[in-house]
């Protein structure tokens, strides 16, 4: 069950990197960055998962011996990572808007004033 998650996460990361490497449109590069992020989040959440575990919320009176949680720390990490990913995307898109205004194109092969 978890193996599928890990394979999926790795696949997402690879797809994201593929998009970043091969797509010439900078918006698509940003989309690729987003896909890498999702793969990463899936990976981290899967690491903390326990088969049959309950939500890691301390609620009174429901504690039975033998009960266990899923690991809350990776979930916290994932939340942070999601927030950071959203910020990266927002920032990259803002830069894309500025670049489009300046260069009149979104093609990476034309956005290369800095080279050599």
């Amino acid at each position, binding site marked *: 069950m978890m193996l599928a998650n890990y394979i999926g996460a790795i696949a997402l*990361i690879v797809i994201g*990197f593929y998009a*970043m*490497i*091969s*797509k*010439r449109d*900078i918006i698509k*590069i*940003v989309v690729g*960055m987003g896909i*890498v*992020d999702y793969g*990463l989040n899936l*990976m*981290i959440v899967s*690491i903390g998962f326990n088969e049959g575990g309950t939500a890691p919320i301390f609620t009174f009176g429901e504690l039975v011996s033998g009960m266990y949680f899923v*690991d809350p*720390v*990776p979930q916290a*990490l994932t939340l*942070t*990572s999601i927030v*950071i990913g959203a*910020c*990266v995307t927002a*920032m*990259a898109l803002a*830069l*894309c808007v*500025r*670049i489009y205004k*300046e*260069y009149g194109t979104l093609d*990476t*092969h034309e*956005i*290369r*004033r*800095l*080279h*050599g």
Partner: protein
Amino acid sequence: MSYNVYNVYMHFPVLAIMTLFVGAFCVTLAGKHEKVRNVIAGCAVLISFTLLALLVKPVMIDGNIITYWMGNWEPVEGYAIGIAIEVDALSLFFGLLITIAVACSCFYSYQYMKQDDARGSYFTLYLMLSGGVLGIVLSGDLFNIYVMLEVMTFAAVGLTAFRTWNPNAREAAFKYLVVGSIGSTCALLGTALVYAQCHTLNLAQISAILPGNLNPTTILAFALLFAGFGCKSFMFPFHPIAADAHGAAPSSVSVLISGVFTKTGVYGIIRVCYFLFRSMGLTSVQTMLVFIGCLSMFVCVTMALNQHDFKRLLAFHSISQIGYILTSLGLCTALGIAGGLYHAINHTLFKGLLFLTAGSVLYATGTTYLEKLGGLARKMPQTTALFLIGAFSISGIPPFNGFYSKWIIYQATFEKAAGGSIGYALVTVVCVVTSVLTLASFIKVGHSVFFGQANPELGNVKDPPLGMRVPMWILATLCVLTGLFPDLMLRYIIGPATAAVLNSVGYIDAAMGAGYAEAHLADPSLLAAPQLISIGAWQPASWLVLFVIVLLAVFLCSLLSRGNSARGLESDAKHAVFFGGERAEYSHISGGDLFWGFKHNLRGYLGFMSRVHTGVTNDYVLWGVTATAVIIAYCFVTM
């Protein structure tokens, strides 16, 4: 826990970080009042520096390690459940050099940023960047390091895109963000895998559990963390973004990106290799680090020879010097680590100085394009002097600081070669050749910017105002002082930091309680106390005397020949008959022509390098991903 009045200095590290962040938000509150903004930013960086400087005595000299649990969440049953701030001599060493650079650059930017139109958020981003960097080096928690890495990257990207009138700024920032995200991804994935193995994020506890547990997951985690931090230090395949970002950012920010930002990568690599995985004992990891260091060193210095932009050239040199640091740290000897750390502090100082002089040239003339500048020495004497100090330091000319650290690095590589591994002799050769090329490159810069014939278009150029010169002089003084008193530096600053690098047992015990390391470490090797023997130590005082004598001689010669120098040739009427009436023409010998023969002979290589750095984002991403894949494959094959 009981009500316990700690030693008051326990709170200093967290306060030093928080001062910067609170300063950042207070700057926002100040709104349109520029003076208030400046005062807040200045106070924040000064307080932060003072707090860290006060820690020198307890941490560096007395050898304490400060462990500070956020919210008093101390370890329970040998598990670190809280978030720690852990400051040993290594952290403090990086913290100090960061705050020095940040303070100098901050005071410089008061005047310097007056040319920009959107100054409102400059100091917010600036202080966020500084706070993020400081957070990385003082933190004792792997995930916090990642978060701070991201805060720092965002602020740096924002500052790179800051100059609205610089047409390249947005492009550079975008490339930086995209390629930097590879590094962040690797670091986070590595962190997650480490958590999966150790069920903790505390650096000290990981360093106790992880070493000796080499299974596929930890090897993958090691490779990913290494690549992640390597990306942040702009090591070899990640270097083009550094050049773009440094060139486009305001100079005061370039100081931070080159002198401070890259150091976090170096710090991360030290923590990962020497502490978390304790993998530096493996020959394969040493070879990898040294190989990457040498590649960065050589490739970037040859790229610098090709450049026509002052700041872009400095950027490539910056990565080349990072190569020195990585190489030296990869040797895994006490001497090598000392040389690497010494070069790290020197790199921050002289690179900061050089970027600030480049900023002054930009401030005065409006351009950093080498072919458009020339003969500024007469008009900007102080800037020229400062540039020379920086250039001498980076090229390793005694008695400036670069010489001593490079000397230690040569020694360390040679020692390694003498100890049996002959391949390291080649490393020494690469180091020396790079140093020579660095000097050549700075002769070119000096010639085309400060000496040579003056460009008549640059009429009323003069030295920058006092507010910009003072921070530069501070950095220059530090450059000279750290070169003149290497023994003091070694004893009080570098020595403790080197000892801390090799003393991971003390680091673990300070956080988790005494005896924890011994109980949990599988393989207690690599625990030997460091022996700091400085073979062939040099006498800076005698060098200084020689230097002063030579300087006096040059000065005297120029005084004696003042009468019949070529200076008055154009204006003197009595020579006019020999010119047949035409005016002397302005013909600039550009820096590119200075090494024409050399470059012509190497045109195959240099042209190839120039063509390979295409400037296309996809290519740089491809390099980064390939490098990560190669590192992972290498680790799996050899570890």
